[in-house]
C-alpha cells in the first residue's frame, strides 16, 4: 500500500475536521485495509473512528446504534435479539467471528463493492474510473439481476438490507453538521453513478443509525456457496406487524441482486392485510422478482431470490 497519515479521532466533529477528498474513515478496517493493500484506494490520510460512539441505546420507540458499534456487540445483545431479530441475524452472517469482533456498523453499511473486477488490482473498471463494466460481458455469476446503471456490482452489506427492511435512518455528519438519511437515500447514488458505492461523499461520517421498533416481526436470511464465512449470493430481509397471522406495514428487501437494496412496491402492496401463508408468500415472491433481468451467469439468482423472499416472509412468524 502507499504511505498515508494516520489520525485517531476522539469525537465525530474532530474526525470530520480531519477529513477531506482524499481521506478515508477507518472503523474496523476490514474493507479499507483490503482496498489499500491492493492499491484500489490510496488515501492520503486514514482517520480512525473506531473509538467513537459504541453505544446501543433503547430510546423507547427506537434503538439508537452508534456508528462504531462492533457487529459482535449486536450479535450478543439480548434485548436487540428480541426487538429486532432481523438486524441481529444479519450481523450474525457477516464474515467470521474474527471479522465480527472488529467490523463496525458504519463500516458494514458503507462498505465498498466486492465485485471481482473492482477488487482486481490490474483491472481498471468503470467503478475505478475506467471505461467499461467488465462484468456485463464477463463473468457475472455474483452480480446484479436488477441494475439501472452501467455498473452491475451488487450491494453486499448484510446490515444495509436488514436496516432497509426495518426502515432505519442513518445519521451522517459532514463538516460537523448531521443529516438524517433514509436507507433509500443512503444507497440511491450507487444505482445511477457507477463510481459510487453508496450516497456518501469521502468526508461523510456515519455517526449512528436509528432503528424504529414499530415492526414487531423481522427476519434476515442469506444463502452462500459455503456454510460459513462466505458472501451471500442472495440475501433477504423482511419486517412487518404480524397480528393473528395478518401482515401489515410490510417491508421486504433483497440484497446482492442490485447495486442498492431491492424491493418492489407491487410485491409489498400485495402483502398488506394478507394472511401469512405459503400461498401469500409465493405470490409476493413472484411479484418481487417479476422485473429481474439477469446476465449470462446469474440467472440462478432469480429462483434463489424467490425462495429467499418466501422464507424470509415465513420466518416473520417465528420472530
Amino acid at each position, binding site marked *: 500500500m502507499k504511505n498515508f497519515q494516520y489520525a485517531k479521532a476522539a469525537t465525530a466533529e474532530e474526525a470530520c475536521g480531519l477529513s477531506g477528498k482524499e481521506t478515508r474513515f477507518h472503523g474496523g478496517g476490514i474493507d479499507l485495509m483490503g482496498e489499500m493493500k491492493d492499491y484500489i484506494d490510496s488515501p492520503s490520510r486514514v482517520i480512525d473512528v473506531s473509538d467513537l460512539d459504541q453505544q446501543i441505546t433503547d430510546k423507547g420507540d427506537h434503538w439508537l446504534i452508534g456508528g462504531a458499534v462492533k457487529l459482535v456487540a449486536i450479535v450478543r445483545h439480548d434485548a436487540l435479539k428480541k426487538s429486532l431479530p432481523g438486524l441481529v441475524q444479519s450481523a450474525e452472517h457477516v464474515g467470521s467471528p474474527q471479522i465480527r469482533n472488529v467490523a463496525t456498523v458504519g463500516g458494514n453499511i458503507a462498505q465498498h463493492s466486492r465485485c471481482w473486477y473492482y477488487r482486481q488490482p490490474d483491472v481498471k473498471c468503470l467503478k475505478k474510473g475506467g471505461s467499461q463494466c467488465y462484468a456485463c460481458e464477463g463473468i457475472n455469476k455474483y452480480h446484479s439481476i436488477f441494475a439501472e446503471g452501467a455498473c452491475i456490482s451488487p450491494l453486499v452489506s448484510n446490515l444495509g438490507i436488514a436496516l432497509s427492511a426495518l426502515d432505519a435512518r442513518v445519521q451522517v455528519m459532514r463538516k460537523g453538521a448531521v443529516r438524517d438519511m433514509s436507507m433509500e437515500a443512503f444507497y440511491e447514488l450507487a444505482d445511477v453513478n457507477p463510481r459510487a458505492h453508496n450516497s456518501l461523499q469521502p468526508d461523510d461520517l456515519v455517526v449512528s443509525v436509528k432503528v424504529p421498533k414499530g415492526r414487531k416481526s423481522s427476519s434476515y436470511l442469506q*444463502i452462500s456457496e459455503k456454510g460459513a464465512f462466505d458472501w451471500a449470493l442472495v440475501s433477504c430481509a423482511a419486517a412487518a406487524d404480524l397480528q393473528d397471522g395478518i401482515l401489515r406495514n410490510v417491508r421486504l428487501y433483497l440484497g446482492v441482486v442490485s447495486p442498492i437494496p431491492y424491493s418492489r412496491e407491487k410485491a409489498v402492496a400485495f402483502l398488506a392485510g394478507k394472511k401469512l401463508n405459503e400461498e401469500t408468500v409465493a405470490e409476493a415472491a413472484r411479484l418481487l422478482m417479476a422485473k429481474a433481468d439477469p446476465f*449470462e451467469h446469474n*440467472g*440462478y439468482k432469480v429462483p*434463489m431470490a424467490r425462495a429467499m423472499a418466501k422464507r424470509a416472509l415465513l420466518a416473520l412468524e417465528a420472530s
Partner: protein
Amino acid sequence: MSEGWPKNPKYLSKDLQRVDAHDKVTGKAEYAYDVHPKGCLYGQILRSRWPAARIQSVDLSVAQKMPGVKAVILIQKVPREVRYYGQEIAAVAAETTEQAEDAIRAIKMIAKPLPFVVNTIDALEEGAPAVFEGQSNLSKAKIRNKGNVDQAFNEAHAVIELAVSTQVEVHHPLETHGNTIDASGEEITCWASTQGITSVRGGIAKALDVPNNKVRVKMDFMGGGFGAKFGAGVEGVACAQLSREAGAPVKLMLSRFENHLSVGNRPNSLQHIKLGADKNGKLVAFDLNGFGSAGFASGGSSAGGGGGAGIPAPYIYDVRVQRSSQIGVAINAGSARAFRAPGCPPASFGIESAMDELAVKLGMDPVELRIINDPQEIRSKQWSQAADRFGWKNKYKKPGSSPGVVKTGVGCAGSKWAGRGKGSSAEVEIAPDGTVEVRCGTQDIGNASKTFMTVVAAETLGISPELITARVGDTTFPPSGGSGGSTTCPSVSPAVKDACDNALEALQEASGISDLSGANWKKACARLAPNPIIAQGKWKKGLSGSGTGGVQMAEVEVDTETGFVKVMKITCVQDCGLLVNRLTAESQMNGGIIMGIGYALYEERVLDPITGVALNPNFETYKLTSMADTPEIDLELQNMPERGVIGIGEPATVPTASAIANAVANAIGVRVLSLPITPDKVLNALSKVPAPEESIPWGRVASLTAQGEFIDLNSKEWIV
C-alpha cells in the same frame, strides 16, 4: 537381525501423537517463513500484468536507486514474451518488504500486448490466438485402443453417454511457496518450503553455478505442498540470485495472490464418455474423448509439450474393450504441476458419474454394479464393507425419490494408487546416554514423517519413543528423494528399520551385551562412551508394498429451492498395507477427504476471458472447505501388515468428489455434470433457470482426436 515387520508390534499401528504437534500449535516450529538470519532482506517479484505480451524493455534504474533497495534482477533477458498473467519478469531485494514493493512498482516496462486465450474451449477453435506464435494450441491426441469398440457397443445391453467437466484447482498450501536463502558467502544455505530438498539444492547450485556440495538446503517444517513444491522454482532461483547480488540473506515468500498464478494447479478436464454393459452389468465397452489444459505449456509441440492434462480413464474399472483419445490444450495461464494424485480425481469423476448413470439404466444398485466390475480383490470387498458401515442399503433410494424441498442422497466411488516404496536411506545415532537420533533427508509435508520414523525406530530398537528424536529436511542427512507419489512412508520406514537393525547389531558388538531389552539398553549404551554408534540403512524390498484401494461413500442434503449442497457424512474404507501410525494416517485421510469436498463443491480458478487476468486469486472467492462445511467423517483404515507399508496420502482425496457428485444426483434425480457443484449449477440442473451457454464442439474434438499417437497399453504411463 530380524527379517520383515514384527508380528506382535508394541508401537506400530498404534496412535502415537504427532511428535512435533506441540511445536506446531505453539508457534515454536520454524518454517521457511519464520527463518530470519541476521541482516535478512526481503524479496519481491514483478509479474506480468498481461496474459500475453512481448516485453520490449525493462528499466530497472529507478528501482535500483530507491531507498533500502540492495539488488534488482531480471528474471529473463529482454526482449522476451510473457504468456500468462502473473509470469515473473524482475525481482527486487530491499531492507523492508514495503521498500521492495515500492521498488517493484517503480520498474518501467515497454510491452506490446498480444492476443490471448484463457478459456480451454475457446483455445480449441480454429483461428484462436496461438499461445506460442506459429504453433498449434493443441497437442497430438493420445490414443489407446483395445478391441473393437464399435462392435462392443453394438452388442451391449445398455449404453450410456455423458459429457462432464472438471475445473482447474489450485494447490494453495497454507504456507505459500518461497525460501529464505543466504548466498552471501561461499557456503550457501537455503531454508526452503519444499517437498524435495535435494532437487532444490540442484536447482539453486545450477542457477548460481556452484557445486552441489556448497549448497545446503534445510526444511525443518513446511506448510503443505500437494505436489507443487518439488523444484527450486523461479522464485527460489530469483531469491538465490538476489541474495548473491546483495551479499546478504534474502527472504522471498509469495503472497497468496502470487501463489494463485504461477506455482501450479490441477488441469481441467472435459470428458465425453460412452460406457456399455451386458445384461448382467458387466462392462463391455468404454470410450473417452477428452481434452484439458495444463496451462501455457500444454500444447503439443510447444514448450513443455506432452499435454499434461491427460487422465487415466477408465481408472479403477476393468473394461476389456476400450478406446480413449485425449488432447492437451495450451491457454494463457500458469502451468499445471503434479497435484495430489495427478489425473485421478478428474478421471474418477468421469467414470464414477458414468457408472451411476449406467446403474440407473440397468436398474441396478450402484454398489452392486461396482462389485461386479472391480478387478482388484481388496477393493471389491471394500464396497460391501463400506456399505455396511455406511448403512447403504437403508439409505439408497431411487434417484430423485427423496421427498420434500431438501432432498437427501447417497453416492459412492473408489480409488487406486501405487503408494510404493523406492530408494531411501536413513541413519541412526545411538548415544552413550541411551538416546537415539534418527536422520533422513526426506521431508514432512504433513504426512508426519518425524512421527512415523519415531514409531519405526522405537519398534525396531525396542525402546520408548521418548528416547528418540527424528530429524528430516537437511541435505547433510542421507538422501531420500522427493515427497511425492505417496512414497514417503513406504520408502522411509524400511530405511529407518534397516538402519535400526544395523545399529542394534553394532551396539551388541560394541557393548558385548546381546540382550538389549529393558535395563540392558542403558547399560549397553553407557559402554559406548565417549563415542556414539552411527549406522546406515536403506529401503529394502519386502518391507513396503504397493497397489492400495479405497472406497468412499457420501451422504448429502440438497436444497432444491436454493441449490445449496451440504455434505452430511463421508464413510471411507482404505487399505493401508502395514499401518505404521494409525492416528496420523487418520489425519491424512481426513485432510484428503476435506480437500476432496473442496474439489466437489467450492474450489475453481476463474480467469477472465475479456482481460485474461485471474479473478479470484484470494480465499474470498477461491473458496476452500471450512470447518462449517466439514461433515462427519467415518474412517476404517485397514491394517494389512503382511503387505508391507503402502502410501495413502493421495488416494485419500480421489473418490470424495465423485461420491458427493453421485450423492447429489441421487438426491435430486438429475446430474450436475461439472465440478464444482455450486448452487447455480444445481438450480440449472433442476431447470429452474436456463444454463449459461457453453457449447462444447464435441464434433470438432472427435475429429481432432481421431488421429494421434498410439500408446502401448502395457506401458506404465499411468499408475498400477
